[in-house]
């Protein structure tokens, strides 16, 4: 059965039902329980839905190959809806009640900030893809590992592309009015100023505002040569793109991965409005001029064919979900134990582990595992099976 959004929701539902009744078995045959804190429903659920397809696929792949040293992998999903309160409850449930061996997630920064300290208290091995820098601190949270870029890495990539490749020296930085939008826009503007660029306009726009003309006009009047976007609101981004076209302004949009979201394609008035838009992307999931992904992921695409729907999600989400499950399995396999310390110790010594999303390296003093050089900009409108073309200007 091809894995689709709806089908998966039900599968997740079914698989999470019997968990409360699980009885402790002998450690050797006991399944490896991975808690998966997923914002599967609610307003910012798109990434978790993508991750989840990877998670389910990876667990099935491992189990059909006989499991890890004879132990099955069991995914225990809790839908947090992106609500920190639900995430806190679910985390404690996983630690104290379900007694999972490792936790993957949560997927949104707000929830992640709330549960990180709780997982640290429970010494729970944790991998997550959240971008907020302060989430990773090997001193305070020796159990937490990140397998996606941090905000700083995203920021660096956007700034690097804007200044060095798009050659814009005057920028307008725009975020939405959510917590993430406000913070990211502030950090980004500060970064641009530090690097000598001029932030000629900075604004946080209410994502529900129906008309973006005033802000766009002011950005243009201020002399902006590039618009930097920090928002997950596809509605707001699409309105800005339409306004740009109406104004006949050919300024580039550079920024958050949501710029490349498929939803935007349906919201813009004509396809051309999506040109000159560059979203954060990843080398591993970007195709080159000949339309080819890096070989490892070309092969992954073949394997996912017909099993995982990539049409309405991003390959990097799926790949990241696969990597997360594999990293736990790998640690148990290598150390021969699913005890907390064993898993954490294994991750701490991980060097250039070849995942699908990236090549991860952790050490006891650095839990940011994603290589900076793999963060690239991609052409937002070039989406194909959840992958993107590299933005112009990469050699």
């Amino acid at each position, binding site marked *: 059965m091809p894995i689709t959004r709806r089908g998966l929701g039900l599968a997740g539902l079914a698989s999470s039902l019997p968990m409360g009744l699980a009885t402790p078995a002998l450690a050797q045959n006991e399944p490896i329980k991975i808690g998966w804190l997923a914002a599967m429903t609610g307003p910012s659920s798109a990434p978790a839905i993508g991750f989840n397809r990877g998670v389910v696929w990876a667990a099935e792949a491992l189990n059909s190959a006989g499991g890890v040293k004879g132990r099955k992998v069991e995914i225990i999903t809790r839908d947090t809806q992106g609500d920190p309160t639900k995430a806190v409850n679910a985390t404690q449930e996983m630690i104290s009640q379900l007694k999972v061996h490792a936790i993957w997630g949560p997927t949104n920064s707000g929830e992640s900030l709330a549960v990180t300290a709780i997982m640290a208290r429970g010494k729970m091995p944790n991998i997550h893809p959240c971008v907020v820098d302060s989430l990773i601190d090997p001193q305070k949270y020796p159990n937490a590992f990140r397998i996606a870029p941090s905000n700083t890495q995203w920021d660096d990539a956007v700034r690097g592309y804007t200044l060095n490749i798009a050659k814009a020296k005057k920028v307008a930085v725009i975020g939405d009015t959510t917590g993430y939008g406000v913070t990211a826009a502030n950090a980004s503007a500060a970064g641009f100023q530090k690097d000598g660029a001029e932030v000629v306009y900075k604004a946080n726009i209410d994502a*529900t505002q129906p*008309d973006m003309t005033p802000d766009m006009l002011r950005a243009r009047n201020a002399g902006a040569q590039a618009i930097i976007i920090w928002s997950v609101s596809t509605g707001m981004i699409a309105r800005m793109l339409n306004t740009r076209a109406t104004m006949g302004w050919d300024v580039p949009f550079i920024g958050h991965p949501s710029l490349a979201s498929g939803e935007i394609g349906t919201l813009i008035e004509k396809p051309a409005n999506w040109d000159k838009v560059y979203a954060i992307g990843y080398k591993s999931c970007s195709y080159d001029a000949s339309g080819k992904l890096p070989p490892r992921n070309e092969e992954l695409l073949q394997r996912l064919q017909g099993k995982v729907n990539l049409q309405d999600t991003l390959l990097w989400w799926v790949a990241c979900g696969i990597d997360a499950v594999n990293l736990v399995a790998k640690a148990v396999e290598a150390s021969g134990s699913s005890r907390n310390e064993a898993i954490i110790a294994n991750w701490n010594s991980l060097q250039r582990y070849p995942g699908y999303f990236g090549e991860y390296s952790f050490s006891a003093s650095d839990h940011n595992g994603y290589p900076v050089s793999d963060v690239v900009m991609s052409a937002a409108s070039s989406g194909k099976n959840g992958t993107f073309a590299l933005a112009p200007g990469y050699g």
Partner: protein
Amino acid sequence: MLASILASGLAVGAVYALIGITYNTMYLTSRVMSFTAGQLGMLGGVFGSLFVLRLGLPVLPGLLATLLACALVGVVTEVVAVRPVLKSLDQHLYVLSTLAVALLIQHATALEWSTEPQPFPRLLGLGAGIWDEKYWLPVAACIATIIGLEYLYRRTLVGRAFVAIAEDNFAARALGLPERNLRIASYALAGAVGALAGFAGGQLLLAFFANGPLLNFYGFIPVALGGLGNNRGAVIGGFLLGLFQQAANFMVGGIFSSVAVFTLFIIVLLIRPQGMFGAPAARRV
């Protein structure tokens, strides 16, 4: 710049005014302020997108289907959340029952439609820039609604019956007016007005489940400012609110514009609880 503030201010103002009229239409026959008013506006956008874009109906049948669907939602609201609590109006149970129905509508939409904003079709393909149809369609819809309602209330028998019920419920019933049927009709009418707001403003607001609470709040402000049940007050209040909001968006930015709108709203209400054009509360003893 000023032109674009005016265009978008009047456009969203017209949508707010229409939602205000939706509140008023329900209030007139039932003395109930319903939390579903904003949801009807949201559904206008969602049904419009569903019928015209997903199901491929032409614009006019799509509009009709949208109006009908929302009129039905209005009738269901009346049956489920209003009629059962009318007996004890002074206990304000209607606040709770209509809030519950509004939440049911919103969450059902989120689950069954989408939690992301969905596209709304271009209807006529007329105009560009500040004369784009997305700006003047809501204003045109608002004017048409006002004219239509004036005609209904002044020239038709049904409309006069509405007015009679609104002025004195008991007397109207004593005269043999079918109070219950008129109330159902007014809820259907309110549904259609709300749907028209969402449909005409669809290109601005998109087909988005979260528009419900937003329209609920911003559509209520014109009612509060203009006086309960006063449609002309609601229209003036709606346009003023739209212009003020867009100007505030422009002057102080997205975060503080909602603070500015809310603060002004509270101050006006505390000074004149009955609204700018409303009459003081009736006697109590």
